[in-house]
């Protein structure tokens, strides 16, 4: 099989060398409308937020340039570092819970057995609810007076599960996972189905059992999907605003006030847009840093396929 493919490659290359000059390639002009659109609505605001972080602005009068005033306030703001810490804890917690479940569930549902297909169809259902709907639903189910904890008090101890910082963080992780594991396991299911069967057959001949096949074939083959899935989780985790607003409203107190939530409160509740822009810039920095790191670690920007070398 290997020799067949390479023979075709060689033939293709020869053919391409002959035919290439006759086919006109699309110029960069094709990308320009979309590029301009993206620059206006995504890149320009990014520059804008950095500039606004150097101003004092109430949203009514023109922004006043104040240099690094917001940033020195930012450094001294204990609440912000608390927000950063909570954001980090939620992020790590979410990845630690979701990644293993999604991988196992995805690989399991990649099997073509009938019962797996039926169950997978059910496992998909949380994806049909928007994040807002999910959060509203769980908020009611976890209600200290009428929800599940009130009825099954013995199981939960304190029925006000959202009443402590620890409880609220655990609930946020559970609810986020409940909603997004179906999506991530779907990504893994697709990737697991794309793993060439020949790899497993070869392992079988070598006498590798199920667990060893999983560790030595499945996991390495899922590498690219892990990067994609983790990137989604990191960006989603840094921006999990709606779920916090609707489930805990940042509480108890400001205990689950993650960075985007603090930013929202500062900008659209207290109308301190300058300082909110400093928080937003910090968020931007974290998100870009994290995804650049993921890209470098994985070499994703080179778009290598896991099928290379087969």
């Amino acid at each position: 099989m290997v020799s067949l493919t390479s023979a075709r490659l060689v033939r293709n290359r020869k053919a391409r060398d002959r035919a290439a000059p006759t086919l006109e390639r699309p110029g960069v002009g094709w990308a320009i409308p979309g590029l301009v659109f993206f620059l206006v609505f995504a890149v320009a605001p990014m520059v804008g937020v950095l500039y606004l972080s150097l101003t004092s602005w109430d949203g009514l009068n023109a922004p006043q340039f104040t240099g690094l005033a917001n940033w020195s306030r930012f450094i001294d703001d204990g609440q912000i570092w608390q927000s950063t810490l909570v954001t980090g804890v939620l992020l790590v917690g979410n990845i630690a819970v979701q990644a293993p479940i999604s991988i196992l569930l995805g690989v399991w549902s990649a099997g073509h057995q009938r019962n797996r297909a039926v169950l997978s169809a059910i496992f998909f259902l949380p994806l049909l609810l928007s994040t807002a709907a999910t959060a509203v639903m769980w908020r009611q189910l976890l209600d200290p007076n009428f929800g599940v904890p009130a009825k099954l008090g013995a199981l939960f101890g304190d029925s006000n599960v959202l009443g402590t910082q620890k409880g609220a963080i655990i609930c946020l992780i559970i609810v986020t996972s409940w909603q997004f594991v179906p999506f991530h396991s779907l990504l893994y299911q697709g990737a697991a189905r794309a793993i060439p069967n020949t790899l497993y057959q070869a392992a079988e001949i070598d006498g590798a059992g199920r667990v060893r096949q999983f560790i030595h074939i499945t996991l390495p083959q899922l590498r690219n999907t892990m990067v994609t899935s983790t990137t989604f989780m990191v960006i989603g985790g840094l921006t999990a605003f709606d779920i916090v607003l609707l489930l805990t409203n940042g509480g108890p107190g400001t205990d689950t006030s993650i960075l985007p939530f603090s930013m929202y409160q500062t900008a659209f509740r207290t109308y301190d847009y300058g300082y909110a822009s400093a928080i937003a810039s910090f968020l931007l920095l974290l998100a870009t840093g994290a995804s650049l790191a993921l890209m470098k670690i994985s070499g994703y920007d080179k778009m290598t396929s896991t099928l290379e070398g087969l």
Partner: protein
Amino acid sequence: MRTRPNYVAGLAAFVWLLIIGVPLYALVNTAVQPQTSYTDGGPLSIPSHLTLDNFATVIDSGFLHYIWNTIFVAAFTVAIVLLLGIPISYAVVRGRGWLTRGVFRLFLVGLAIPSQAVIIPLFLIINRLNLYDSLWGIILPTAAFALPVTVLVLSGGMRDIGTELYEAMALDGASPARVLRELVIPMSRPSIATACVFTALQAWNGFLFPLIMTQSEDDKLVTLGLYNFVSQYGANVPALLAAVLMSAAPILVVYLFARRALVAGLMGAGGK
């Protein structure tokens, strides 16, 4: 290949079924019982009698209009994203030179821009364009933030089109526009489907843009309608959960009739 049943995995899957199923049961169960029965029994107990009154309450509050708005936003967001994303990806995959490579890298980095982080300047831009409190104020930013994933997915799909097909087009002396229309678009249908599904769900899920960019009742989307319901009907939990259920109805319909397309579409977002 041998398929020995995997009992451990089966058991774990059953546990996961409970985790997914019990809250969904509680959701439906609560939505179909009267409020008195809910306050007595809670979300899990089997109700003494069933009712559809909660859904009537939700519909009377204008919820169908929110659903219509959301469908409108999702449809136009998808249209814009495809209209802009397909030519970008085509240029990225088939074009040569550092400019097109740069474009690809820009969108790759763009993937990491959280919409929350730029909401303040975006709010300013939408205001300047006189789009505040209109559905377009939601559609345009949502489309912009869906573009990076779209470009990644589409260019991934277009890369897989075989060289020999391009050569055949070259023999005909086809222009880039014709190649796009007759070869690239038909051949990348699966990734176009993925981009559609992903963008539509993004628009469907959108919360921050509607929250910041609109305020009037007329421009309310489903997600925001739910948010307001919490304060409006806070005490009437069955009605609130009926609204949650109704908010999922349109996608549920899509799921029932086009499950394969929806699942395959989302799966494609993982890339290869």
